[in-house]
């Protein structure tokens, strides 16, 4: 009886995996062994281990880490405070709503806001710091990326906090634990699953960001995603693009296993 139900759930899902995940992976793997002229080669893999691509990989991971860290720092208190508000579900919806406006349009808005004569600079001048170059800097890149990913971090953490049994917190407080201790020993560990899935939902896509690397960072930041996009669309070197993608998928698998549940 039990095994019967399990099989039924697996059927549509495995079908989806075979068609839209396994088949594309095989295609990518296949392409990664061909050079730009369609000859079989291992050269793409050799090329990946040259300083240019290794440096790119390193910087991608560094930026993805920064973006995830800042998203978490901002999203956790947001999610926490949201659970304390009166119309919490409404506010949560309002956190997601901005993501429905086209990303390119929002990027253009940021170009205006961060520009030399933009709103952000007027504000800096007002508070006495003076005009700064904001656009095309690491700061603006991380800022806009965090902006994009915030809802994806808030949502799972919010859900984890919601299921938290408030009596546990009360009990800890009654036993004399300070606010900080309660948070560190009770709240945070119990919402760790939410934090984990939030980090996965941010870190992994952050590795392959493109578009805003050009729009907001002015190609000063090159991520693995940018390189893949270039190889597929500009150079038309699908082999090299696929090779980078293969490494990206491997990296993702490692991250998943490392942060996976140990139950």
């Amino acid at each position, binding site marked *: 009886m039990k095994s019967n139900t399990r099989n039924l759930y697996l059927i549509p899902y495995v079908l989806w995996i075979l068609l839209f995940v396994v088949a594309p992976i095989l295609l990518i793997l296949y392409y990664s062994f061909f050079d*730009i002229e369609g000859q079989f080669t291992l050269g793409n893999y050799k090329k990946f281990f040259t300083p240019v691509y290794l440096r790119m990989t390193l910087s991608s991971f560094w930026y993805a880490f920064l973006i995830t860290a800042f998203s978490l720092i901002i999203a956790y208190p947001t999610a926490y405070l949201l659970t304390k508000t009166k119309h919490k579900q409404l506010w949560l919806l309002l956190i997601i709503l901005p993501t429905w406006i086209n990303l390119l349009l929002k990027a*253009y808005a940021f170009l205006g806001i961060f520009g030399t004569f933009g709103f952000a600079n007027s504000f800096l001048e007002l508070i006495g710091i003076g005009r700064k170059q904001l656009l095309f800097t690491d700061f603006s890149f991380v800022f806009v990326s965090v902006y994009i990913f915030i809802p994806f971090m808030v949502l799972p953490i919010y859900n984890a906090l919601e299921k938290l049994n408030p009596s546990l917190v009360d009990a800890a407080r009654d036993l004399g634990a300070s606010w900080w201790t309660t948070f560190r020993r009770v709240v945070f560990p119990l919402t760790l699953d939410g934090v984990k899935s939030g980090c996965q939902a941010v870190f992994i896509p952050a590795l392959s960001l493109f578009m805003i690397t050009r729009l907001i960072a*002015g190609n000063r930041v090159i991520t693995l995603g940018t*390189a893949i996009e270039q190889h597929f669309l500009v150079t038309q070197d699908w082999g090299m693009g696929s090779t980078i993608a293969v490494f990206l998928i491997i990296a993702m698998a490692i991250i998943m296993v490392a942060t996976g549940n140990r139950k």
Partner: protein
Amino acid sequence: MKKLVQMFAAVFAVAMALLYLASHLNTTQGYSGDNTLTIYNWGDYIDPELIKKFEKETGIKVIYQTFDSNEAMMTKIAQGGTTFDVAVPSEYAINKMIEEDLLIPLDHSKLPNLKYINPRFLDLSFDPKNKYSIPYFWGTVGIVYNPEMLGGKKITSWNDLWDKDLRNQILLVDGAREVIGMGLNSLHYSLNDTNKAHLQEAKRKLGALTPNIKAIVGDEIKMLIANEEAAVGVVWSGDAAEIMSENEKLDYVVPKEGSNLWFDNMVIPKTAKNIEGAHKFINFMLDPKHAAQNAEYVGYSTPNQKALDYLPKEIANDKRFYPDLDSAQNLEVYENLGKRMLAYYNELFLEFKMHKK
């Protein structure tokens, strides 16, 4: 559970209603009939009035679809599965498409208006005898700059960009051949140079330019320069014309060391179904009055000699956008350098981008 079922039912119902509305509109507007012509072009690269006029004159319903890069367009056409009757690729893409057998030869007898095109723009190396393509717009690569922000300084050459005063003032367009070509030109090498020593030299020289470069961007470059976000931009002439119409302080120059001469041409891809209509459309666009109207709307330079008569004098006589091509010997058309060489250009460009300040 009840709530879940309710929600999904509501979502499906709404989606079906919208789907019905969309397909109803599609049929009443004629977008799904038989007598249609699908044009695959860059976004906003044609005067919509001309499409309406063409529809009225011929009774053919036009479906206008857009792409944002030659490579993406080629991928779509090569894979098939969809109809495109007319496309407007750039010259190097046409060369590639001919090689890969993606184009249908044109029937010149159905294009009587071809005679209005300036012979200077016909029979070029990327498409001998214009067997597959007809010029749509053309232009150069050059420098647009803001003399006011540079304290009245004039820019006339690529080498002027290496000036120490231009620190953090230059925006470059995101194109490997444009940027590497700029390095090559500044060293008086050909834009189509395949000598790796020369290319490495160009890369080193470009590396020295990094402190002056603010960013390497795409189409946003127009908005940024018009907005005085940076004083200097390396752009295509069509973009320059557009920027200058927005900000009159700006000037455009084709550097004296030489530069690139580019074309966007109309072609009929292998995916075409309405080949007759495609010829009609190409001929319609070759009509001098239509070409002039289109050039005024888009702001790029028209290759149609006769159309110049219909353009306002200040546009037709602007030497920056209609340079005297016989005296401008050092303008080069990009040649197809082969996949390997092109990959090498891109590799250098990637290294240039990753060059830290």
